[in-house]
């Protein structure tokens, strides 16, 4: 559909859900219970129409005073008073009965006023208040009165369409029979129906917006997150489960890149990671997952010119920078240069649609090539919904792959010694391309760090478990036969990843030593 044929709402995120806007002259119904944001949405529709698209508009109210509407809009940064002064907006207080009469009369005052300001949009707040009286006494004898609400509404819809006004009408939902009947009629007659909901979940208020139908166009179905922010207005965030609408096929790269600039690790993984690959780094707390993530990003920037993004729910950026600095990894410099970005969000009351949108925005804005998500297990706790957690993960992987980004997810496995399952709460081993395990091994009386690549799609990776240290410069792999003083090297043990590594006999150890040269 061409741009001219669409009316853009101007409301952040909503036109994206509507794939550009609403077909011109569609009658739009916004329905929802008290407090869901119907009046706000309608007001912003008119406001944005004026300030962004130069389309004057009218707001018709039955119960709210214009003064309060102007006051409430001012809190969102909208100066409706100024727009009225400039004759781009007219707010009219009237009654449902007068509206019905006026809209149906081509020479009415209402339509005359609309014509005077060149109105192209109209918002009618509270269409459910229309109520055809069964007793027609006292009504203008020459006026044709509809016997039912549906017929009455149809006449209004007809009139608005005749005047070529793009109308947005709001209707309050509820449990009363009257409300249900009037809503059913309105929903049937309207061309576009938008449903607003407000619910409390785990003590937190969640608002959603759903496009139920829209004649003449496609749209992103489902419940999308809606926020109302003081100083700006409404914002709609596409739900993470909605599939990407991309016109490109899944790109594939054969370019291999160093993980952290350490040859030993690149050899383990089969020569490096492919652009666009997804890697899961699994390990118990304290084994160095964040350190590895930091090195991944620095390697991307310093050696390959690839901007990076670190997303964390666990650590504040200041703490991440401090911890990196103690290891001689000067992340601060890359952050200040705008080469590496850090997105921190508290897991408390995490809005996943908003969070996903923030990640996408940063990736697109800075053309991020390497992404590290530090703390996948925190998402599980924050969301409390395994399905939503999984949907977020799938959506993020799909988006990153479409951009051929290399993505690393750090997952804290609760198993302290030895790992029996990669991700106990959410099996994703089939989704990711590479899996790196960081684990602790108890040898003699000390804990030693162990890195193993258990999966590397498309690569002939090694299955050796290698010891590594964390020190100046971050993670370093020890040579395969190097022994740390006092303790024996890994090569002297079997079942290193299990909870009970077993030392080889002397003969077996000599034989293995011969194999490795």
């Amino acid at each position, binding site marked *: 559909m061409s741009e001219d044929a669409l009316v853009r709402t101007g409301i952040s995120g909503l036109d994206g859900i509507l794939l550009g806007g609403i077909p011109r002259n569609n009658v739009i119904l916004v329905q929802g219970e008290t407090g869901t944001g119907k009046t706000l949405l309608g007001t912003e529709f008119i406001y944005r129409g004026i300030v962004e698209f130069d389309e004057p508009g009218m707001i018709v109210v039955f119960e709210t005073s214009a003064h309060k509407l102007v006051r409430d809009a001012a809190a969102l940064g909208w100066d409706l008073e100024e727009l009225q002064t400039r004759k781009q907006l007219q707010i009219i207080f*009237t009654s449902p009965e007068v509206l019905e009469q006026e809209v149906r009369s081509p020479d009415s005052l209402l339509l005359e006023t609309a014509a005077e300001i060149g109105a192209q949009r109209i918002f009618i707040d509270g269409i459910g208040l229309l109520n055809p009286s069964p007793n027609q006494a006292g009504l203008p004898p020459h006026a044709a009165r509809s016997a039912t609400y549906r017929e009455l509404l149809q006449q209004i819809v007809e009139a608005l369409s005749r005047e070529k006004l793009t109308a947005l009408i709001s209707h309050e939902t509820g449990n009363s029979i009257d409300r249900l009947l009037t809503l059913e009629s309105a929903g049937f007659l309207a061309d576009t129906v938008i449903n607003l909901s407000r619910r409390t979940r785990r003590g937190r208020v969640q608002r959603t917006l759903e496009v139920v139908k829209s004649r003449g166009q496609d749209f992103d179905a489902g419940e999308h997150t809606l926020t109302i922010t003081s100083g700006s207005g409404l914002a709609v965030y596409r739900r993470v489960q909605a599939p990407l609408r991309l016109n490109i096929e899944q790109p594939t790269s054969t370019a291999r890149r160093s993980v952290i600039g350490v040859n030993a690790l690149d050899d383990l993984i089969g020569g490096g990671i492919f652009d666009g690959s997804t890697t899961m780094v699994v390990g118990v707390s304290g084994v160095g997952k964040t350190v590895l993530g930091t090195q991944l990003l620095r390697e991307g920037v310093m050696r390959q010119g690839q901007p990076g993004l670190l997303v964390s729910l666990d650590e504040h950026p200041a703490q991440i920078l401090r911890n990196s600095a103690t290891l001689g990894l000067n992340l601060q410099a890359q952050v200040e240069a705008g080469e590496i970005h850090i997105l921190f969000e508290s897991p408390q009351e995490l809005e996943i649609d908003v969070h996903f949108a923030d990640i996408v925005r940063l990736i697109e804005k800075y053309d991020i090539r390497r992404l590290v998500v530090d703390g996948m297990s925190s998402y599980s706790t924050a969301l409390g919904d395994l399905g939503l957690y999984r949907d977020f993960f799938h959506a993020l992987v799909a988006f990153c792959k479409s951009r051929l980004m290399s993505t690393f997810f750090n997952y804290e496995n609760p198993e302290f010694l030895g790992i029996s399952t990669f991700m106990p709460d959410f099996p994703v081993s089939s989704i990711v391309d590479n899996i790196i395990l960081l684990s602790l091994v108890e040898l003699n009386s000390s804990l030693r760090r162990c890195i193993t690549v258990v999966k590397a799609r498309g690569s002939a990776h090694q299955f050796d478990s290698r010891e590594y240290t964390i020190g100046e410069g971050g993670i370093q792999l020890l040579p395969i036969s190097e022994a740390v003083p006092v303790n024996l090297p890994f090569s002297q043990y079997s079942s290193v990843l299990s909870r009970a590594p077993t030392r080889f006999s002397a003969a077996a150890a000599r034989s293995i030593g011969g194999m490795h040269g």
Partner: protein
Amino acid sequence: MVKHLSTLGITHLAEWDVLAFIYRHGTSLAGAERIASLLGYSKASVGSALDSLAAKGLVQRSRNSRGVRLYQFIGAAPDAPPQLALDELMKVAEERPGRLLLIKHLKQAAAGKNQRGGLHLA
């Protein structure tokens, strides 16, 4: 307060309430009966108040369209005496004690007029 009421030429409570109603609602598309039902006055009182306010140049009203008109408050320049008077009265009337004081003054004014053979409130 008396001075401000005098500046605007308001002598009846109905005139004030109707003026405040139109001011608050910006532009109203209604008939006298509708305004009366919302304000709790008789249709005659509201009709009389509207006529009076229009004559004083405080309210603009459109042609009659099937029993309804567009009523708009005619704002003066921000520093003009009528606007200043209105602003002050609005502030006073925002609080309950102020509202009661306004009622008292206007009732006294109406009573004084009645004694001199003035308008009766319906």
